[in-house]
């Protein structure tokens, strides 16, 4: 959707040190009273990577982004962006980054144009350059004819796009995006994902949080799975999936299904996890053939007819369920 000399191209190199990781996080911890939101996480993101941070609600994704971008201070541990510590040398660290926060926080009283100009001057972008870049970004994001409209009157999707444009006005080397597609319609989701890919291709390192497995799977070079403040796995989507090959999935559907069916199936021998997918149940097991026999016996005893049964390959979701012990709420059916 964006041509080769796209405005999303080109990254300023002013404050970066090239021999450093784009993001380095060491034993980062954040406590709120007795609650530990981020529990000693460590990872590195290399320059040019599109890094996914995947986890269910409340896992600690936003907390991590807030610490990395200076909105919040860590309780312990450290983090740096291109070698600049985010707490000790925040000025340099923040000159190299920008952020698309969880909530689209453009100034509602300002027009799209003024929002871009304000952000540019806050990051020290010179007026002439800012104006040119704002023009380009507004066109690329399809907001050019709305540039003189106050953000108050923007739809959620328009706000999201504007906030992404605002985050690009200073040509950041690292872009943090906290659930950039949540709450948008299919078309906006697809166009934002396309933008994310283009941005990454143009050389921007992207740290993207999501609770959508499909999104992590199709966008990211590497994915860290975070649950209850701890990183439970970091790898490429494909490696994570093959890790799950040890565990197989069985999908089954009966002619009559009640919530009790789900509970009863979960208690069958050899079944590790059960999650509901529309009219199907998805089971995880070490031994699919034993599971299929057990299901057949179960159906016989209860006078249920099996209307569908399948043993599909592992999905990222299986890895996720296995690693986090949560599941159903983190992905919608058909989203694989």
């Amino acid at each position, binding site marked *: 959707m964006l041509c080769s000399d796209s405005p999303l191209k080109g990254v300023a190199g002013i404050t970066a040190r090239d021999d450093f990781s784009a993001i380095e996080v060491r034993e980062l911890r954040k406590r709120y009273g007795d609650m530990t939101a981020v529990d000693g996480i460590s990872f590195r993101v290399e320059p040019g990577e599109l890094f996914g941070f995947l986890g269910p609600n409340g896992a600690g994704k936003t907390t991590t982004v807030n610490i990395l971008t200076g909105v919040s201070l860590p309780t312990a541990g450290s983090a740096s962006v291109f070698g600049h510590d985010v707490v000790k040398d925040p*000025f340099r660290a923040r000159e190299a980054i920008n952020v698309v926060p969880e*909530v689209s926080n453009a100034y509602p009283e300002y027009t799209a144009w003024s929002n871009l100009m304000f952000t540019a001057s*806050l990051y020290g972008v010179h007026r002439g350059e800012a104006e040119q870049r704002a023009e380009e970004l507004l066109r690329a994001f399809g907001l050019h004819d709305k540039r003189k409209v106050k953000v108050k009157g923007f739809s959620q999707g328009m706000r999201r796009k504007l906030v992404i444009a605002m985050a690009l006005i200073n040509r950041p080397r690292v872009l943090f995006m906290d659930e950039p597609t949540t709450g948008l319609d299919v078309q906006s989701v697809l166009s934002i994902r396309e933008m994310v890919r283009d941005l990454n291709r143009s050389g921007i390192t992207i740290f993207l949080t999501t609770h959508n497995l499909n999104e992590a799977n199709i966008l990211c070079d590497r994915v860290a799975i975070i649950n209850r403040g701890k990183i439970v796995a970091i790898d490429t989507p494909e490696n994570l999936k093959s890790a799950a090959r040890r565990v197989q999935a069985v999908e089954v559907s009966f002619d009559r299904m009640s919530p009790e069916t789900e509970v009863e199936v979960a208690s069958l021998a050899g079944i590790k996890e059960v999650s509901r997918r529309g009219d199907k149940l998805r089971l995880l097991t070490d031994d699919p053939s034993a599971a299929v026999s057990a299901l057949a016996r179960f159906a016989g005893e209860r006078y249920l007819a099996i209307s569908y049964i399948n043993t599909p390959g592992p999905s990222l979701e299986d890895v996720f369920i296995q690693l986090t012990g949560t599941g159903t709420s983190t992905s919608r059916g058909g989203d694989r």
Partner: protein
Amino acid sequence: MIAEALSPERLGKELRRALVIAGKDIRIYCLKPPVLLFGLVFPFFLFLAFFVGKRGPIEEGIPGLICISVFFASSNIAPAGMPFERMTKTFSRYLSAPLSLTWMVFGKTLAGFFFGVAVSVIPLLVGIIGYGTSVTSPGLLILALLAGGMCFSCLGTLVGSMPTEAPGNAMTVLNFVRLPLLFMSGIFVTLEEMPAWARGLAAVSPLTYANDLLRRGTGFAGYYGWWLDLLVLLLYATAFFFIAAWIFNLSRRRS
């Protein structure tokens, strides 16, 4: 890194960014209803109610009117804006921008300062044109407006630093602080006319000193030395500012 943080180049960048924040705040908040109501209209009527009730000559009250205007206008921008910005999460933009927390707080404070000083020109002109106020000492008058504006704006920033997302809460606290400071000051009753205990109380209110300095600038007798007025205003400003910056940092630790 400390030497770098204090380099002229860095300080210049941060000052410019602080001014950017100040400019934006003035543009967005100076016409918001709470600012118009509590920053401009309310102090004017307050003044009328008290001064006209006293039946004194209006021209005697002009320095007081100017003082009240700066006081209410300067201290109003931050408490009106910040809770709203916390609610819309625009506040986090400043925290992730490349300028230190102290400079960000300074930018927020400058907004109130500029607004208050600009607003004070209205009663000053009313005094000069309508009531023959004479600016006998322009230097002291300007110092009074600048130091007063800064001090009261820092007070506003301090109130704005309380971590609420409801502008109403901050306005309530603000008026809860402002009205006592106003009534204890030497504005409605001059310091000479006060009993000793009231004079002691007045000495606590920064308004007393701003008013004293304004009176000297417009040809009335002062009570304290002009340097003492100035010193106290600056000390209050510094204290308000750094307590506010400390609270902002604390809430970053808690958020």
